[in-house]
């Protein structure tokens, strides 16, 4: 299984390379890409400057493999890719990249929403929100 985790931010160039690789797949008519960008939230007057992500990687890879298998059974997808950053990701940088492709547009929307939500809920990733004053708190997905 290929590696899902990327050290540092996911760059726009990485995303464009992923898109370019799919241009030889001529049965694809629709791509949907979800990107998570680190937001400069203000919490009790302190602004988030970065999130430091860590993962229980061995477990995360197993969970993602199950998610992938179920997604291909549930949705009529041609391709599916998930990438998540590890390490410190500054505000404005991209930490999460989900990419699904299908023959027709109607196949991709529900798959995208389902996959983003299940990754947030089921993959053991942890985020340390670092404020501008270098204090921190631990991020919790709702």
């Amino acid at each position, binding site marked *: 299984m290929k590696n899902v985790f990327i050290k540092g931010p996911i760059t726009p160039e990485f995303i464009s390379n992923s898109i370019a690789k799919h241009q030889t797949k001529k049965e694809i008519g629709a791509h949907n890409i979800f990107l998570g960008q680190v937001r400069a939230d203000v919490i009790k007057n302190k602004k988030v400057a970065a999130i430091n992500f860590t993962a229980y990687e061995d477990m995360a890879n197993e969970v993602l493999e199950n998610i992938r298998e179920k997604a291909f059974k549930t949705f009529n997808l041609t391709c599916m890719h998930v990438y998540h950053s590890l390490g410190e990701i500054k505000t404005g940088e991209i930490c999460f990249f989900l990419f699904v492709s299908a023959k027709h547009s109607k196949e991709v929307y529900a798959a995208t929403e389902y996959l983003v939500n299940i990754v947030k809920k089921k993959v053991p*990733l942890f985020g340390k929100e670092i404020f501008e004053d270098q204090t921190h708190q631990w991020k919790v997905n709702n």
Partner: protein
Amino acid sequence: MAILKYYGAIAEATNCFEEQISVTNLNVADCVALLNKKYNLNQIQVHVALNKNLVEIDSAIKLKDSDEIALLPPFAGG
């Protein structure tokens, strides 16, 4: 001996990422209670993974040597 793994807010509380524990006659619930007491984890919502599968925090599954028990704080990916 089984391997204990800690992540995020829990690793911060234990001040380490990994340690070993003797598991003679210990089940998951016992183990969690022990660590909870030792490291004062009450503030953190803990999930437990036994060999990379989530189990109930009060599970009576007996631990054995070579098991990997991970204490996981709330997930924050995406």
